[in-house]
């Protein structure tokens, strides 16, 4: 098992955002985490990534059977967890290419961040950018400064493809994308699965799941798991709304 979340309860300041959540993501599979807005999906992603302010009250998170709760965010990233954010921030001054080189150097154990350790990274970055329909100039631009919504999503995917993490968490990678954009995202998710990575796909629509049939589906509402199933659960939600998830859970 790549990633296991066991009985996880989390609060942010005084608000409990996750209540006893358990799920697991296996290598070579896509696990969709669905739920309406405010159901705790992004909180789950942030907690797995170790974001400051997300306090684990009880439960555990295991990567390859080992707890990662004691690790800082960057240590979790270097162990092989990658989070593609729903709305990544703009970073004035930091060029996209520099960020990719720095992230790549860290994975190669290089202390120097901005000098290219592995020249193939640059070639791969350019090739992936072309494949994802990102202009070559974007690699020289500051991270997410003036990026369109689509460019942000695609640049998050580019990093996921380049850094080759064990676990890829994609937080609503389809929001704000047109049909072609969604197809491209789906193509990459399928590729991650084929490469044997564990994919946690967070979404509140099933439209992306028409292009990537998930192996497992977990539904969160109000910070709790209310239903589990396969792809059929996602399509039932698409047809009848989240009310069906509670009935499904009771069944």
């Amino acid at each position, binding site marked *: 098992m790549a990633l296991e979340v066991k009985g996880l309860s989390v609060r942010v300041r005084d608000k409990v955002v996750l209540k006893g959540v358990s799920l697991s993501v296996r290598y070579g599979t896509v696990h969709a985490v669905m739920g309406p807005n405010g159901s705790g999906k992004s909180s789950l992603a942030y907690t797995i990534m170790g974001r400051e302010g997300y306090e684990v009250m009880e439960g555990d998170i295991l990567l390859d059977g080992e707890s990662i709760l004691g690790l800082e965010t960057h240590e979790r990233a270097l162990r092989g967890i990658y989070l593609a954010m729903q709305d990544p*921030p703009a970073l004035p*001054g930091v060029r996209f290419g520099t960020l990719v080189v720095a992230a790549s150097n*860290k994975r190669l154990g290089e202390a120097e961040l901005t000098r290219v350790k592995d020249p193939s990274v640059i070639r791969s970055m350019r090739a992936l950018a072309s494949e994802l329909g990102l202009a070559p100039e974007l690699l020289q631009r500051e991270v997410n400064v003036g990026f369109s919504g689509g460019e942000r999503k695609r640049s998050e995917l580019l990093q996921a493809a380049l850094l080759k993490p064990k676990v890829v968490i994609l937080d609503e990678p389809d929001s704000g994308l047109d049909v072609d954009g969604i197809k491209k995202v789906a193509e990459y998710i399928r590729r991650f699965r084929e490469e044997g990575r564990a994919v946690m796909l967070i979404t509140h629509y099933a439209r992306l799941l028409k292009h990537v049939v998930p192996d497992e589906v977990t539904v969160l509402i109000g910070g709790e798991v209310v239903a589990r199933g396969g792809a059929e659960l996602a399509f039932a939600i698409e047809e009848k709304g989240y009310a069906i998830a509670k009935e499904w859970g009771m069944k």
Partner: protein
Amino acid sequence: MRQKYLELFRSLPFQHVADTPTVRHYTDWRVFEERLGLPHSETELEVPPQLSHIRPHVRLGLGASYVTREGVKVFGEPIEPMSTIEVADKMTAYHAASWRAGAHLELEGEFGNLYVISLGGEAYMGHHLTLKVRGGASGNVYFLDVLPDGRNLKTFFIEGAVEEKASVGIHLLSLHSPGSAAFTLGKFLIYDGAEVTSRSLVVGGKMSRVQLDYVVKGEGAKLKAFASSAGRSGTKTDFVLNSYNVGAYSEVIVAGRGAALDKGYLSLRGSAIVEESARQASSEIELQVIMLGEEARGFAVPVLEIHSGEVAKGNHSAGISHVAAEHLFYLSSRGLSRKEAERLMVSGILGFSGLAEELNLDPLELL
């Protein structure tokens, strides 16, 4: 003339209250005021180790020394100093009355890369330089404005003219030690069809006021100005980038990035003014400052004034923010520790203008 400037200096007030009508002063004039009684320096600073790999062609210190080469004529005195600068404030008048060492540069043809260094001293040092880039010339001029640590003061003025169809880079590195005070002013007139790229990097001292004024006079003249700056802990930097579109079809792009660190202060501001004569001109100014540290203070103040009835484009934007938890989380999620994330951001901001790369400098070694 010196006597006239001295009288002006005595009569003009410091702007204790405000630099702008919006009742805010970004330069701490008191630091300058306290140092105006300093004598002229008797020694000049050595070239700092970060710049030791650069061989300057013109060296301004206690006096001026220079080497000439093809395409470059150097004279030991500026020609018609202060002819393009209005003496309307106390520090400008002080400089006009007090500077001692200077030079005039004339550049023509393909003159390559030219390095001019202005070195401060243990007390007051004033330098004045005039520059003429002849029509059709191409190359880069790098002004290195450095000041050692201590209770000192330097004024450094550059007046430049870029003639028709020249294509040049005019760049400024201001590296002022933390205890120093510096008032640096550059004013550049850009004529018909000339193209200027300007890269600047300012790391200020106890009080550094650095102002670059670009007057894009000629028809179809173009300016691209990129700026980087950092306000270190215990220092104050007021970096001003002003542009004036005067010529029809003139084009201006000004973009700056700055970081205020720890207890540092940085204001990055500029006015982009499109004059009435500038038909179909375009002007864009974009300034962003981030603050790293609870006690850091930063300002990004771009102003766009359009007096022409027909402009091709006019944009201004500003961004100012504390380095938020989300920035650090994002970089951490890519595998960088907090310290590495902060270094990457600062290095990126200082590298934004491109000058550090052109001078082969590690931006972080300048802090």
